[in-house]
């Protein structure tokens, strides 16, 4: 390839392109065709009926018009490239006709960007990538010398698109990549060079889809079905997938891994004997789509399939429809026998039972056909495809091994990221037609990322498509589905937060999280800071998404604020104390208790798994962890490490949006002793943890799973006085409705601390003492009418003392 590629706008191909652009409009061509016909008709009338010899001159314009229209149809409309992408010395030989007609001599990249903005490729990058005309015009170079780089990039991109020429998609991509410092600009809109390349491929694929849709397909002609039997009942009850395809209802590109699966299925249904296939794969993996692709292959690629199944039509049955068409089980059986007989007799029908479990056991909306299917499958005369999930296949294998043994299993695996994106890109075009929205490229990638992270009950590509469908409910600028729309959809569906903190209130909360937590709890500054830091990292997007937001082990005596910190965090940021999932692990001291942790919501809605499945964005408090059975702790290792636990049905439950806080009183006496000896926490922290490991309270591998192990120290009397203030504030909050305010004198507070402090239980008894004294005094006064709404009362130590002594 030449370093100084140019575009010869005077080349023969360029001249043809410019000439052709005059006839691009269908109406112009139609008008010319009518004119030619009228001229010929006039010529015929005048010459043969009126014998006007001068009328022969009418043939001159008629023949010229006809020749131009024929030339347009034969060459100009397509105008194939005159050089190959591999060996080119003049870019005019490769540019698409549309582009070539608009290129003027010596154009700079900036001028090219103006041309491209009115072409389909320009619109594509503008709507899908957010790279509009302004972006290109502002950043493209304005010197002619830079255009050679654009042409070189365009050739490289055209090679990836699979076309033999440079279309407007490849040229737009080339202009973007040729911008000086393109990487930086692209990074600002979460893109890189590879994404632009993907865009060019996607654009060319959409072009191919449109071309394919416009083509007339050969489906076998009017005599195709003469050799095949009548299927009146089947036509009435079933849904004919083949007919849908004939009407142009299936436009998807063949994904390589699916081609192999389709070929395997084709081999099974074409074979003599057991001509059946059971597609086994997770929900959402694309089993139904695979059958549509298979049906398409049977009627369009007849050379690639065995002769005995060419032109076979695929008809799907719906269990609910079957039941609705009959009144008794006997009638249902009769109907099915008739349907199967028609299919066998017709010799061109493949029956497809989607969600085949509905045909294999009785229930609401389902029907047990196993007894009927056995002889049919054994005989092998009926060609049938069933679709089952992995679990349903295992169930069938266990419950009816004879029936399962008659079926040819085809495993349908989830697609990898690249193939998923190809399927999603195809589906996007159809979703856009349905939803009247435009999906951006970034939204597709965000959907893949978030579906992988949050949707575990379905496989790709189904789950990605489902998420994109939901995202259409949260468009931006009226009709654009963006990455933010996808994030909103997942936030609404899963009650999580995936968007980085953007609102002023949220950023303010995060930046001042410590202050907000300290409004509820006293001291433990280090613990509060570490937990707040973890949350800030998560919400600013600086975190490992494959682990929980943060995992902490709080060690310390009772009543020093371990649980209070957890509650405060849930209230301050997660939206309320109900966001805290509390599991008291002293209730899980037996090996079999692991089952209770993993129970599904349907059996125990309060199990750890059930609560997190329902509310993934939570604070999980695992209280008194040292009392849990080692098996329970082993189970929690995976949760701490990978953020995943599998429930009793083996469904993965994600803890990746939770903060996990474990608490333990282990070694509380030692902490107290160290503090009483005048040491600071930092001075003995490491030694203390080592002692816990040596004493086999915790195994080192368990402790290593936590992001931080935080020691809580006993509260001092000064701090307890502040706790009294917090408790008093809580009492006043309760009394706010009565418009009564309570105040305590300093001596009263000190008395409460004296009575409420217990070296063993920390500040925990303080709340009870407060209740017994302050709240009782206020209650008595309210009942006696000695205080009225709007009043403020001050309680002193003697009054408190008297009340406490009365008990």
């Amino acid at each position: 390839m030449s370093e100084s590629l140019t575009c010869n706008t005077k080349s023969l191909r360029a001249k043809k392109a410019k000439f052709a652009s005059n006839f691009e409009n269908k109406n112009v061509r139609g008008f010319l065709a009518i004119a030619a016909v009228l001229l010929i008709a006039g010529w015929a009338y005048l010459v043969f009926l009126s014998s006007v010899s001068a009328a022969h001159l009418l043939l001159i314009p008629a023949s010229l018009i006809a020749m131009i229209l024929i030339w347009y149809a034969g060459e100009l409309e397509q105008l194939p490239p005159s050089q190959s992408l591999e060996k080119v010395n003049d870019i005019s030989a490769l540019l698409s006709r549309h582009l070539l007609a608009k290129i003027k001599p010596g154009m700079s990249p900036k001028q090219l960007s103006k041309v491209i903005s009115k072409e389909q490729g320009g619109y594509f990058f503008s709507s899908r990538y957010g790279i509009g005309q302004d972006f290109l015009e502002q950043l493209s170079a304005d010197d002619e010398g830079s255009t050679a780089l654009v042409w070189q990039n365009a050739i490289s991109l055209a090679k990836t698109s699979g076309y033999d020429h440079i279309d407007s998609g490849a040229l737009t991509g080339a202009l973007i990549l040729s911008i000086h410092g393109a990487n930086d600009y692209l990074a600002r809109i979460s893109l890189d060079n590879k994404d632009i390349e993907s865009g060019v491929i996607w654009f060319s694929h959409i072009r191919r889809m449109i071309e394919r849709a416009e083509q007339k397909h050969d489906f076998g002609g009017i005599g195709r079905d003469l050799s095949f039997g009548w299927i009146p009942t089947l036509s009435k009850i079933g849904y004919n997938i083949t007919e849908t395809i004939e009407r142009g209802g299936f436009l998807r590109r063949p994904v390589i891994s699916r081609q192999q699966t389709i070929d395997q299925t084709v081999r099974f249904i074409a074979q003599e004997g057991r001509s059946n296939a059971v597609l086994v794969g997770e929900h959402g993996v694309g089993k139904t789509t695979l059958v549509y692709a298979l049906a398409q292959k049977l009627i369009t690629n007849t050379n690639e399939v065995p002769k005995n199944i060419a032109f076979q039509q695929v008809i799907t049955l719906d269990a609910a429809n079957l039941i609705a068409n009959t009144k008794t089980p006997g009638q249902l059986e009769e109907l099915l026998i008739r349907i199967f007989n028609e299919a066998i007799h017709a010799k061109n029908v493949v029956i497809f039972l989607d969600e085949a479990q509905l045909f294999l056991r009785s229930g609401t909306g389902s029907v047990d056909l196993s007894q009927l299917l056995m002889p049919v499958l054994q005989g092998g005369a009926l060609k049938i495809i069933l679709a089952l999930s992995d679990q349903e296949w295992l169930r069938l294998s266990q419950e009816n091994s004879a029936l399962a043994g008659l079926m040819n299993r085809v495993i349908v695996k989830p697609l990898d990221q690249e193939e998923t994106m190809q399927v999603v890109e195809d589906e996007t075009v159809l979703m856009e037609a349905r939803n009247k929205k435009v999906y951006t490229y970034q939204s597709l990638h965000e959907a893949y990322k978030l579906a992988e992270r949050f949707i575990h009950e379905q496989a790709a590509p189904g789950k990605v498509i489902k998420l994109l469908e939901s995202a259409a409910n949260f468009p931006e600028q009226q009709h654009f589905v963006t990455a933010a729309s996808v994030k909103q959809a997942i936030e609404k569906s899963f009650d999580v937060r995936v968007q980085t903190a953007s609102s002023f209130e949220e950023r303010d909360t995060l930046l001042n999280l410590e202050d907000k937590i300290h409004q509820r709890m006293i001291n433990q500054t280090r613990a509060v800071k570490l937990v707040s830091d973890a949350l800030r990292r998560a919400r600013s997007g600086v975190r490992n998404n494959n682990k929980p937001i943060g995992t902490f082990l709080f060690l310390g005596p009772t009543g020093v604020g371990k649980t209070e910190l957890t509650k405060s965090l849930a209230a301050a940021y997660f939206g309320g104390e109900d966001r805290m999932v509390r599991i008291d692990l002293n209730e899980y001291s037996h090996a079999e208790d692991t089952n209770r942790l993993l129970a599904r919501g349907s059996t125990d809605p309060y199990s750890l798994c059930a609560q997190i499945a329902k509310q993934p964005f939570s604070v999980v408090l695992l209280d008194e962890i040292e009392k849990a059975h080692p098996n329970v702790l082993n189970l929690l290792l995976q949760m701490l490490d990978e953020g995943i636990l599998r429930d009793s049905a083996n469904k993965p439950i994600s803890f990746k949006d939770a903060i996990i806080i474990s608490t333990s009183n282990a070694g509380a006496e030692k902490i107290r002793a160290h503090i009483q000896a005048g040491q600071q926490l930092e001075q003995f922290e490491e030694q203390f943890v080592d002692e816990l490991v040596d004493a086999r309270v915790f195994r080192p591998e368990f402790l290593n799973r936590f992001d931080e192990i935080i020691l809580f120290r006993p509260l001092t009397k000064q701090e307890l006085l502040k706790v009294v203030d917090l408790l008093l504030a809580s009492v006043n909050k309760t009394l706010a409705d009565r418009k009564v305010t309570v105040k305590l004198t300093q001596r009263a507070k000190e008395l409460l601390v004296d009575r409420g402090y217990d070296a063993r239980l920390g500040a925990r008894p303080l709340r009870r003492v407060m209740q017994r004294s302050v709240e009782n005094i206020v209650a008595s006064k309210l009942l006696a009418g000695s205080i009225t709404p709007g009043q403020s009362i001050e309680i002193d130590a003697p009054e408190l003392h008297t009340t406490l002594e009365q008990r």
Partner: protein
Amino acid sequence: MVIFLGFRWWYSEGWLWIFNSAVTARLKKWISYFSMPNLAKTLFAPFKQDVGKRNRSGLDALVQSFVDNSVSRIFGFIARSFLIIAGLICIFFVLISGILMIIIWPLIPAIPIISILLASGAII
């Protein structure tokens, strides 16, 4: 002049294009439309698989089944033959029109000159 590029195409790639579009593509289309290869392969197959079923044994049943099948096959043969003949007629017209088109193809650019000569009375 661009028009000369048109003439160049007319007498070079244009020949091949008119042959492909007026003959080959049309033949393929009509052969496919009438399912002719498929019909030829199944010429004597029963019509819509309407074949008699033997529900009882014996010579009578065998004869009855044979007659039923033969009738169905004869009916199938007639229906297919009808379609094949209709297809052949179409193909005939396609071929004739295609050949005519190929013959007059090189003459079309000469029409303006011929017209002038006709108008001037130089040729009758």
